[in-house]
């Protein structure tokens, strides 16, 4: 089956409606074909966005009264009593409920904060993976094409609000392909594309202050089958990401730190 035939089946696959044998074939194809994997990722984002937008009225007002009114009209008598549905605690429970609410409020704030931080980290991870995949799938992967760091680094002057060190990659398995300006959360940054054994790795550089203060991406992270290592240096946050073994990512990250 060729690319176009696979792509025509992507929506059915993502809807979980493709027969299992074909789904397994497509699974295998997606592991090998970067272009189809990028397309699948785009369509997954699309589905997610539609679901979120489509739940627009799910919390509009209290929905239950409409159902109750209709059932009352039909002479409906609830087997539980309507009070169960309207959640009205009796007076003697008020003090206990208030105390419980206070505990839950404090716990809720902590949980909410942790959840928000995790959500922000996950969102950032997803965006970085997306940026990397979009670069790989792009016909023009970089805007400055050069393996010479003395050409690539000056190209970013005036395009990003910072300067960064670009180490010499000679005598290493890595080869600089070039760079482009990238955006994360509407902040401009540098993206360097580096090749190792026919695989491409993106190195994203952004100012640390443009990212969430409680960002927790230290060390190696396995994100959607991509490996990512992040570190901070001279007020800049570096993200090294690719679908290569973790050792390669770590080795390149160590090079970038020097």
């Amino acid at each position, binding site marked *: 089956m060729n690319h176009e035939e696979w792509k025509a089946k992507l929506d059915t696959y993502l809807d979980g409606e493709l027969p299992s044998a074909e789904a397994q074939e497509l699974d295998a194809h997606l592991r090998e074909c970067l272009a189809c994997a990028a397309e699948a990722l785009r369509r997954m984002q699309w589905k997610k*966005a539609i679901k979120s937008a489509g739940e627009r009225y799910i919390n509009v007002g209290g929905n239950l009264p409409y159902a109750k009114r209709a059932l009352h009209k039909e002479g409906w008598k609830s087997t539980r009593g309507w009070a169960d549905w309207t959640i009205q605690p009796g007076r003697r429970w008020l003090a206990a409920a208030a105390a419980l609410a206070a505990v839950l409020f404090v716990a809720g704030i902590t949980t909410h904060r942790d959840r928000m931080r995790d959500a922000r980290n996950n969102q950032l991870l997803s965006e970085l993976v997306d940026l990397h995949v979009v670069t790989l799938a792009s016909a023009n992967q970089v805007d400055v094409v050069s393996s010479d760091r003395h050409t690539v680094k000056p190209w970013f002057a005036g395009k990003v609000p910072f300067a960064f060190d670009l180490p010499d990659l000679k005598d290493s398995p890595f080869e600089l392909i070039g760079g482009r300006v990238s955006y994360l959360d509407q902040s401009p940054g540098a993206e360097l594309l580096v090749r190792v054994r026919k695989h491409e790795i993106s190195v994203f550089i952004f100012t640390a202050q443009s990212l969430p203060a409680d960002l927790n991406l230290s060390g190696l992270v396995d994100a959607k089958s991509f490996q990512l290592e992040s570190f901070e240096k001279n007020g800049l946050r570096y993200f090294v990401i690719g679908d290569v073994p973790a050792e390669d990512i770590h080795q390149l990250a160590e090079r970038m730190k020097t």
Partner: protein
Amino acid sequence: MCVSTERPSAMFEELALPLAARLYNFAHWLTQNRDEAEDLVQETYAKALKGFPSFELGTNFKAWIFRILRNTFLNSRTGLKAATVPLDLENEDPALPVEQETPETILLSRDSRELLQSAIEELPVPYREVLLLCEVEEMSYQEIAGAVGIPIGTVMSRLSRARRQLRQTVESKLQRRSVQ
């Protein structure tokens, strides 16, 4: 087996009431009007309660009650108007691929939820309903076919066209926005 005996009240309550918010959401998307959506949900519940003794146990209650809502809508004044909107030939190219260049990244990064919502509103009702049942209600093609009363092949072609049209609308809205 029908539920004409053995405490249908408790069973109906268990099955129907948790779906109130989802039915209202779907009703609002169909009618695009809060009052009409409330009326539609009320009427749906009343009809479902009356018809519950004939509901066959073991079949999909969610698809059944969504079908009641959808049929009730189609018989309303707004629904009758919506049903007269002509669609393209439905049985042609059932598995149309969507365009490769897509606006998802822009859509997500610019937080354009409202833009997407207005694009969904612009879809003809037959496309809007299958899209929402698939993406929001996460129904299978079989369940959608049951809820809407169309063959599975038509579900697939409408879904494909709905996605394509939605994407085109979002793209043109983004283009207009960038020009302004």
